[in-house]
């Protein structure tokens, strides 16, 4: 009798990743921390431990000892579909990797599994499959014409044609959450930093394609995007590229070199790192309290800025240097931060799950900004450094307010927007 072919073709997974699956000791520490597992009300399939075990079983059924001797065992399409749904219920926040007792690089496993499923035709999740075509056509993830990338720029902002420093705006700040781009540009102008941008030629950083396992689609689209960006950055003569979006920053620091197969010919920095250096050098003079009065401020580490690339201190230093800002950390901070729930395609694919995680995170902020036993006398500040976090945390706050939770009355702003305030600048275009 002919042997059946393995149901799972090992694509996009490295030999080391296959070994990591066998390294899981099923201690469950990852499940203790996973924000989406908790946010889903502990839906078993979302537990990182469960996902590793199920995928290991898939691999063993296809290529393990018994499969090699007696032929692969079938994995049904239902099993694949269920797995696909579960592996997409993950923001790629990375805390499971941080706490993993076997030091498994889980985030890369989830992304590899997603890419594998996309290649076999089971993924991605929901409407995520429209993204490659949209980005291929428009070079941005919001299906906007290319020239809309420039519509955020206010008349007063000066952008050089070529400069040593380039500000990579990103699709979200350039098209949707333009306050972030406006603030960044005005702050740089005010500090006398000459900078340029890629203007209409800027292409999506590729993050959304990589996180959802679709980077190979549309003829290696992600790689083409990166090649285009790198070529254009070089043409601008920039040696340092600044990012205010954590997702873009992570992509350019970690993913771009891998996609290109070589080092980038420029240095990349998150704008908070750039500002922290300027503050240290005594080159920043804040002109006022950002909110006109003393405020308590806490900071949410975006996963893609903190755990993924290790930037924790710079945004805190920037906030702590401003007048009228008393800084307090949430209980879960830095490497042990709780994700906002937006990343990894969860916000677009599973908005309810995303919202329930956001509410938990806003709850973390509430408990330090308005301690239970103290009367609420003013509105305090919840800062972050990523437009996705801002959007989702704001949705979480609004949902809590709608549930008549007065302690959710919090101002949610990006560190750079707060900097603009402290320099007496407006963070809206007009």
């Amino acid at each position, binding site marked *: 009798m002919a042997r059946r072919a393995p149901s799972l073709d*090992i*694509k*996009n*997974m*490295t*030999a*080391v*990743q*296959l*070994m*990591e699956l*066998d*390294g*899981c*000791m*099923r*201690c*469950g*520490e990852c*499940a*203790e921390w996973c924000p989406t597992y908790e946010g889903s009300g502990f839906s078993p399939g979302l537990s990182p*431990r469960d996902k590793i*075990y199920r995928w290991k079983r898939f*691999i*063993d059924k296809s*290529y*393990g*000892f018994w499969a*090699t001797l007696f032929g692969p065992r079938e994995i049904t399409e239902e099993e694949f579909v269920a797995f696909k749904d579960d592996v997409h219920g993950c923001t790629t926040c*990375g805390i499971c*990797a*941080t*706490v*993993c*007792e*076997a*030091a*498994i*690089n889980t985030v*890369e496993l989830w992304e590899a599994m997603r*890419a594998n499923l996309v*290649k076999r035709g089971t993924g991605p999740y929901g409407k995520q499959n429209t993204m490659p075509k949209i980005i291929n056509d428009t070079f941005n993830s919001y299906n906007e014409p290319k020239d809309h990338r420039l519509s955020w720029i206010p008349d007063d902002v000066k952008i050089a044609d070529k400069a040593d420093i380039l500000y990579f705006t990103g699709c979200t700040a350039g098209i949707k959450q333009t306050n972030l781009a406006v603030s960044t540009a005005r702050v740089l102008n005010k500090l006398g930093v000459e900078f340029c941008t890629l203007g209409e030629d800027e292409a999506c950083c590729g993050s959304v394609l990589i996180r959802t396992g679709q*980077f*190979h689609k549309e003829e290696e689209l992600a790689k083409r995007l990166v090649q285009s960006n790198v070529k254009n950055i070089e043409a601008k003569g920039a040696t340092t590229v600044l990012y205010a979006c954590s997702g873009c920053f992570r992509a350019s*620091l*970690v993913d771009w070199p*891998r*996609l290109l197969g070589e080092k980038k010919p420029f240095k990349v920095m998150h704008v908070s790192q750039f500002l922290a250096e300027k503050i240290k050098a005594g080159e920043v003079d804040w002109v006022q309290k950002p909110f006109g009065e003393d405020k308590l401020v806490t900071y949410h580490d975006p996963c893609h800025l903190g*755990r*993924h*690339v*290790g930037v924790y201190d710079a945004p805190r230093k920037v906030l702590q240097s401003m007048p009228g800002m008393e800084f307090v950390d949430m209980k879960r901070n830095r*490497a042990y931060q709780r994700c906002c729930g937006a990343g990894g395609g969860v916000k677009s694919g599973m908005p309810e799950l995303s919202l329930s995680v956001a509410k938990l995170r806003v709850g973390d902020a509430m408990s330090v900004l308005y301690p239970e036993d103290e009367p609420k006398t003013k509105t305090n500040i919840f800062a972050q450094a990523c437009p996705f976090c801002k959007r989702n945390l704001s949705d979480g706050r609004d949902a809590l307010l709608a549930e008549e939770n007065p302690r959710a009355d919090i101002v949610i702003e990006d560190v750079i927007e707060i900097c603009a305030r402290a320099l007496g600048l407006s963070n809206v275009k007009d």
Partner: protein
Amino acid sequence: MAMEYFSGVAGVSLTFNVMMAVAFMAVFLLLVGFYFNIRKWSQGSEGWGLDPADGRKGNFMVFFKTYWKQLRSHSIHHEQNILETLVFDVLLLRRTARADPLRWFMHMLIFIGWMGLFSLSGLMFAVEMIYLVGFHYIDPEWFREFLQFPNQILGYVLLFGVIIAIARRLFIKKVKENTNSYDSILIVTLFIVVVTGFVAHAGRYIAFGITDFTGVDFIHYDYLFWTLGGMTPFLTYVKEIALTHSILALFIGFAFIPYSKYIHAVAAPLSMIVNKGGEH
């Protein structure tokens, strides 16, 4: 006269040849198991975002090459040196200690007990082999006696660890709910190996003629406990129990590693090393 076998079940005259055959079979099974695991891992690709290269699937070198490449590559998180990973993360299980002190304690007991017994058995085997080939520097019989005490201590260390593991799975609700057969086979088999080891050992006291249990001492209680108060079958079948234990220890505690959850004992350290101690 058949050569006496000392390793593990000293004092009981199992023939050397029987034990050698069993040991070689266990080693063979272990190697076969690892062969299949490395072959499975080698179905993967050689780098991030790649598909396995045509014609290289299952080629042993793929795994070793990919591992080496990753080990040498720059990590965005930190470049923890390999010695620090080996000492703190692999040997001292620092990552587990941070998470849950009880689980760390349990793991350490099992780890120390198992590794200790395994190493001492290996040592005994080596001494015996050296003696066998004609170098009579160390008398195996003396050496076996010398190992009795550390063996007994390590056995209790392992037993205590296994008992904690079983208790966690039985009495901590969250742990119990998340236990499946993959987990329980590991603990149950380990428990069986440890218990048969103690029974075999206790039977030896009589077989060796240690019958004077005067005074309240450890050996007395040890003997009474593991032979259920000196019940006859434990004393009559000392040899069979000893043989059973040796076979179980070889097959379950050793040959079974690549076929079960025991594989984590190899794959988890490999993962810690290649990921340079993990993210934090």
